[in-house]
């Protein structure tokens, strides 16, 4: 078990910005807690700061990416009604969402 590390929390501004990017509504308590916990984690993650990585190629997956093609034939897709039946709201065989820019007051 690790000793608790006295790390700097992330700033409230950074947490608010990241939450907005992540489309997450955080309570004040969650924002506080994540600021501390993420700060703590990032201080542990500083162990890689000493590594010299200039000439190392990034590795984003176990194999080199390659195109995967198939014959241009029609295969059955998912059933539209079955898929739409799982949606919270639909209209005319489409997904229904609230207005993108909100409703005028």
């Amino acid at each position, binding site marked *: *078990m690790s000793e608790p590390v006295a790390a700097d929390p992330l700033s409230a501004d*950074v947490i608010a910005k990241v939450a907005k990017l992540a489309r997450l509504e955080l309570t004040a308590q969650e924002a506080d807690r994540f600021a501390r916990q993420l700060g703590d*984690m990032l201080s542990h993650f500083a162990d890689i700061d000493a590594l010299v990585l200039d000439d190392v190629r990034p590795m984003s997956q176990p194999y080199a990416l390659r195109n995967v093609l198939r014959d241009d034939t029609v295969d059955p897709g998912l059933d539209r009604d079955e898929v739409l039946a799982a949606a919270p709201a639909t209209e005319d065989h489409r997904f229904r969402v*609230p207005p993108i820019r909100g409703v005028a007051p």
Partner: protein
Amino acid sequence: MSGPASDIAMGVRDGSRSAVTVLEDYLARIDAREPRIHAFNVVLADEARHRAADIDALVANGADPGPLAGVPVALKDNMCTRGVPTTCSSKILEGWRPPYDATVVRRLSEAGAVVVGKTNLDEFAMGSSTENSAFGPTRNPHDPTRVPGGSSGGSAAAVAAGFVAVSLGSDTGGSIRQPAALCGVVGVKPSYGAVSRYGLVAFASSLDQIGPFANTVADAALVLQVIAGHDPADSTSIPQPAADLSDVLTEGVEGVRVGRIVDLPSGADPDVDERLEAALETLQTAGAKIVDVEVPAFTYGLTAYYLIAPAEASSNLARYDGVRYGLRVDATETNAMYAATRAEGFGDEVKRRIMLGTYALSAGYYDAYYGKALKVRRLIADDFERAYQHADVLLTPTSPTVAFPIGERTDNPFAMYLCDTYTIPTNLAGHPAVSVPFGTGAGRLPVGVQVLAPMLAEPMMFRVAAELERAVTS
């Protein structure tokens, strides 16, 4: 118990055992202990009974139901099952019924298996104890005051408790091997691309892989052979057939080079280290050659993983937005609807990882965190490659500790992450690894030893695993 899955399938196929009778044995154990263990999110008793009766009817009519005929199986509840709820143990997917089956589910069915239920997990497979479930924790059958490990804790506990003969889990950073170790069963993380991920709810797509839990190494091999092999529906699926594992289990380890990682990160408890030493001795006695190897970047696995996996997760989980499936919390405009839905639907650990991943990918921090982690990932893969020039397999503990008490680590996320120290580098490299039960440690709780192997070296990995198993069962 009802014996190994291989015995069940053989008996059902030759008509000497009935799939219905086999199933009832397992359902009786579920009735007796499931309320305490909570391995399942849903038990599909009626569906399983119908299915078992169909299997018996096929045999009566002279047909062969397949290599898993009548074998009761459980599926981690992050694998899509058509028309059957698939929750990922998250409120955001509660009640969702997928419109298709995962490839592994289809392959199990085609092999004659009987699906008994969907098992509990840490929400979206994020955790090491199955405590992060929206539906409550799973308990360890060896000691119900302790965790079963995670994130596939329900699948591990279901096999350990005799609720099913075998089960499937998913492993992104150790989520099959660590619960296997803590529950005293065999757990396999196959090579990346060996098993189709089609229909597996994505957590971190470059790391996720489905694999089996079983009571024996042979059963794990049997299930892996059924689920592995190319699938056109997964673009990362390796375009070749599954490896043949049936003959390797009895080959022994004469002349096999087993690597001991001399610079392995410390932190394993003494009782766990003692079992690793015993395993190395066992293999040496059986004719293997123990060699010392260095994997210097192993120690940086934890950092690389906890940047890369949350980064991928933050992207993958963007799809839970209240539009196409699952929970919606209504609002007067879409952005507010997304944010409110995700606030209500995701649990604490999932939110934490989405925040961490979004941060690591955001402008200004990308190079310092995500970009750097990808380079460390390369170092780890390169170090493994060098080590495998001297060794055929590597041996490590699976988990630094035996099963810990429920609640012990829930307040300290980083302490929970340390559970994955020895399992994570395998996922980063994309390699296979297996946890084999190898005796007990503190409190007579199970300890697992991990056999790591190079890409697609499952046959050699299973040879060594089978030797370790012979040593503890003979």
